[in-house]
């Protein structure tokens, strides 16, 4: 449950990402695959060495979904229900991987935004993404 202040910080973070979903998404995936190579098993359809175009396409998809979540922080379950079904029935990404993605997200934002990505923004963003991950894995069993 995000407080009003936390929701405001999440919106602030999203403002810095919106419009650049593809670029940020691609870098997010690249960091994920570089730092945690085991995560690549969930993206076999991108090939052994995903090229820039594939990372941009898939990265954009991931970040657009994050954008949907940002617009619906009050009713994540409803907004993300189709994605939750997808993750439970098709993708079945082990829940342990979401913190790895979240870490890469923070590092990416910190490296791009530096001073603009404040401690409060990181705290709210971490809480928000953790909630999103929980919703996405809630229907697993």
């Amino acid at each position, binding site marked *: 449950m995000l407080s009003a202040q936390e929701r405001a910080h999440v919106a602030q973070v999203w403002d810095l990402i919106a419009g650049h979903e593809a670029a940020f998404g691609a870098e997010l995936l690249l960091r994920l695959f*570089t*730092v945690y190579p085991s995560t690549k098993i969930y993206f076999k359809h991108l090939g052994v060495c995903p090229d820039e175009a594939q990372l941009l396409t898939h990265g954009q998809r991931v970040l657009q979904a994050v954008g949907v979540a940002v617009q619906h922080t009050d009713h994540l379950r409803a907004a993300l229900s189709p994605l939750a079904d997808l993750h439970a029935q098709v993708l079945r990404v082990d829940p342990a991987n979401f913190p790895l993605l979240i870490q890469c997200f923070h590092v990416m934002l910190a*490296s791009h935004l*530096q001073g603009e990505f404040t*401690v*409060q923004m*990181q*705290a709210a963003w971490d809480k928000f993404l953790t909630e999103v991950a929980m919703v996405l894995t809630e229907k697993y069993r």
Partner: protein
Amino acid sequence: MVHFTAEEKAAITSLWGKVNVEEAGGEALGRLLVVYPWTQRFFDNFGNLSSTSAIMGNPKVKAHGKKVLTSFGDAIKNMDNLKGAFAKLSELHCDKLHVDPENFRLLGNVLVCVLAHHFGHEFNPQVQAAFQKVVAGVANALAHKYH
């Protein structure tokens, strides 16, 4: 045992040489206490931790952060024997400080964020990978003597 390639060691040592240990230490510990507030349980005697600004400005947080990061610098000098280098500290954290090793992983991740913050684009995926490896190695070394 963690093995670092020559490239990883070079990337780590070169970046670490540019780190202001005092500043980064305080920043990392402060961020840990803000982003993961339950970690404050180990710092009851640190005084005012009631708000983000209180935590980030708290002199005890800064001092302790510096201490922790100075010790981390020793890890950089002993990448081939992290378990040996941190054996005594591991015993201390288990027997005297009673710190859940999960906290080492959390602090390691926060430290990587702080480095990304400072170094911006220089902190590319390969550099991040090398540092995540080092912080994971340190976390494991610190947990190694737990019983």
